[in-house]
């Protein structure tokens, strides 16, 4: 079960760096996640780790051994592709057995292994069917079975759930987690859905424009996003970002915005002048349901978006950008209605307006 090390790896396509000088370590036997928006280079990074592509610069080490020039088989890596990549002319059984046939294993051993993994993924009743006859969920299970059957050291899942119907994705997420725990192999998940990364990845690498912007556990990235991009991108509902200002008058500092002002205790190392304030919708609440908070203000409803059991209320509170407030219930109101919302100061994020780096959390300023 290799500990994977990526050292200054770069890959250029027609001169443009798709993966730009990436270095990271993926611990052994973990559920590692590479998260990034479309065209952030995450799929290419996966292909480099898998050995489907060779880097133009840098090295890749499995347990300290340089595998940069080796292909997927020598690296004992298995891949489940985003579009399933099943062989259309082979039955589900032959698709799963394909890696074992390539290894020229005896027929009965192949049959035993395929049946075992098919039962495990609950598709043993569909083995004689061709991919065109399978549902999305079933095709995904066959793709994962094909990756698991040859007990490779590393299993790479390239956006495995993106093609699935919304509801099936919910169940598959829990199952992927269960699978990783039971097979104890190194699983690397590539995804564009932050919610998927949050619920599955023990360690997450957030990528943007070919670089690793932040790497850490779910809590690290959620609590201490390195900049506005990670703050906005890494969350169930996109973080609210609006302009504010640090004002320092005769050694009394305060954080001022268009509609509220907060006195700050230790703001010594904060630069004066404009800053970007971040506030997660789930850290805000509607007074009518959750009572008063440390800071409260009024906003006009633009849209109430019911997301299954919760609701995201979009309000215009005069801060320029619309604010999103997360309400843990079905909460439908007319457009234009006024509601009071609030938040606690400790949940604030302060970013520099120059390079958008995280300067401090609300808790650091009033502690």
């Amino acid at each position: 079960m290799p500990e994977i090390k990526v050292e200054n790896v770069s890959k250029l396509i027609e001169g443009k760096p798709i993966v730009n000088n990436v270095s990271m370590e993926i611990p052994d036997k973990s559920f590692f996640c590479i998260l990034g928006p479309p065209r952030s280079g995450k799929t290419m990074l996966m292909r480099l780790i898998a050995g489907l592509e060779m880097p133009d610069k840098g090295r890749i080490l499995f347990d300290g051994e340089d595998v940069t020039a080796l292909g997927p088989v020598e690296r004992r890596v298995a891949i489940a592709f985003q579009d399933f990549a099943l062989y259309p002319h082979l039955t589900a059984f032959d698709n799963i057995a394909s890696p074992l046939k390539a290894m020229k294993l005896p027929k009965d051993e192949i049959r035993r292994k395929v049946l075992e993994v098919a039962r495990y993924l609950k598709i043993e009743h569909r083995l004689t069917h061709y991919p065109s006859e399978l549902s999305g969920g079933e095709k995904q299970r066959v793709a994962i079975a094909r990756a698991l059957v040859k007990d490779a050291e590393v299993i790479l899942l390239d956006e495995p759930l993106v093609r699935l119907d919304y509801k099936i994705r919910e169940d598959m997420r829990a199952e992927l987690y269960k699978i990783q725990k039971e097979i104890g192999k190194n699983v690397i998940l590539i995804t564009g859905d932050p919610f998927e990364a949050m619920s599955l990845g023990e360690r997450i690498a957030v990528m943007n424009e070919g670089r690793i912007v932040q790497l850490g556990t779910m809590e690290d990235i959620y609590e201490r996003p390195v900049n506005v991009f990670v703050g906005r991108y890494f969350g169930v509902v996109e973080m609210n970002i609006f302009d504010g200002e640090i004002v320092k008058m005769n050694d009394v500092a305060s954080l001022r915005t268009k509609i509220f002002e907060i006195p700050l205790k230790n703001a010594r190392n904060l630069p004066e002048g404009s800053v970007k304030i971040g506030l997660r919708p789930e850290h805000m609440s509607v007074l009518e349901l959750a009572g008063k908070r440390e800071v409260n203000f009024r906003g006009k409803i633009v849209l109430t978006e019911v997301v299954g059991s919760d609701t995201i209320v979009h309000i215009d509170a005069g801060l320029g950008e619309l604010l999103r407030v997360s309400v843990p219930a079905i909460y439908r109101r007319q457009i234009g209605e006024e509601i009071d919302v609030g938040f606690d100061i400790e949940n604030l994020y302060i970013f520099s307006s120059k390079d958008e780096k995280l300067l401090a959390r609300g808790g650091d300023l009033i502690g």
Partner: protein
Amino acid sequence: MVRIFLDHVTKIFGDKKKRVVAVDDVTLDIPDGAFVGLLGPSGCGKTTTLRIIAGLETPTKGRVYFNEEDVTDWEPRKRNVAMVFQFPVLYPTITVYENIALPLKAAKEPEAEVRKKVKEIAELVGITEFLGEKPVRLDVNVRQKVALAKALIRDPSVFILDEPLTVLDPKARIELRTKLKEIQLGLKKTMIYVTHDQTEALTLAEKIAVMNAGKILQYDTPEALYNNPANTFVGWFIGNPGMNLIECNVVEENDKLYLSTEGGFRYDISFIADELKKLGLPKNVVLGIRPEFVEIGSGPLEAKCVHVEYAGNRIILHLESYDRTLKAKTPITVKAKPGDTLRIDFVKEKIKLFDPKTGNAIL
């Protein structure tokens, strides 16, 4: 405006060998000016139902009425219906202005009138600066807005949308949802919105018909679908994550009533014993409870935590209780790690019971 009534509509595709019942005896009453959602997984017949209303498909059985007039055999052009497809369908080689104006020109409206209306609609949908462009060079978000404007300009009596937002990126999706809501409220149009994503249906529609395998399972307001689903499918499909469904036997012991399973799962439901007796005390039943109404900390049941999912201000606990699995959705204040053993209980008034064979709600 138009009230649409589908009377036992059925649509069967394919020849004798391979018959597919896409729409199975659907009766649906869409009041005038209402915004109705058709919600269901892919392949449940919702798009076919839509196409029957638009006249693009003719039903195998059953009739379609617009305001008491039988339009079943009417051509689409006679029904004054406008439709926005999942992928923006525009005329590729003429400008956005001409794309929007064409339906009016086809109806021989005076030039000045056409120009005024196009300006107005372009303003409403927010594509004024693209009027001179050719669609082929615009990104999919703008193209879908143009398709929306094209559908609106004709002032149709029925406005049909077939999963119009799926191709858009998240930002454009929020923007267009807001616009659709404004348009619907402003123009008081009868609107039918097909989607497989519950968020869009619950957000936009006043009433939603949940469909599966060609049948309408429930036709009600979002709150009703959420609080008392008519059957197990609706319970599972609405809400994220969906309702927990636990099959168990009904056991009567020294005048107390329990739900129990072979693996030791036992829950006292004496508080609804008399209603159940009135229904003839079924031997086994499906217990339905939404993850949000599973209480962690104290309670008669024991459950092992298998996996924890963070969902912003709430966490989803995947639990194994005796021989059954269920999920709980609790505030992040509840500290639980995989492997912990917890005591759980259910919010009594939120418990639902379903018939295991038909899946329909009993209580």
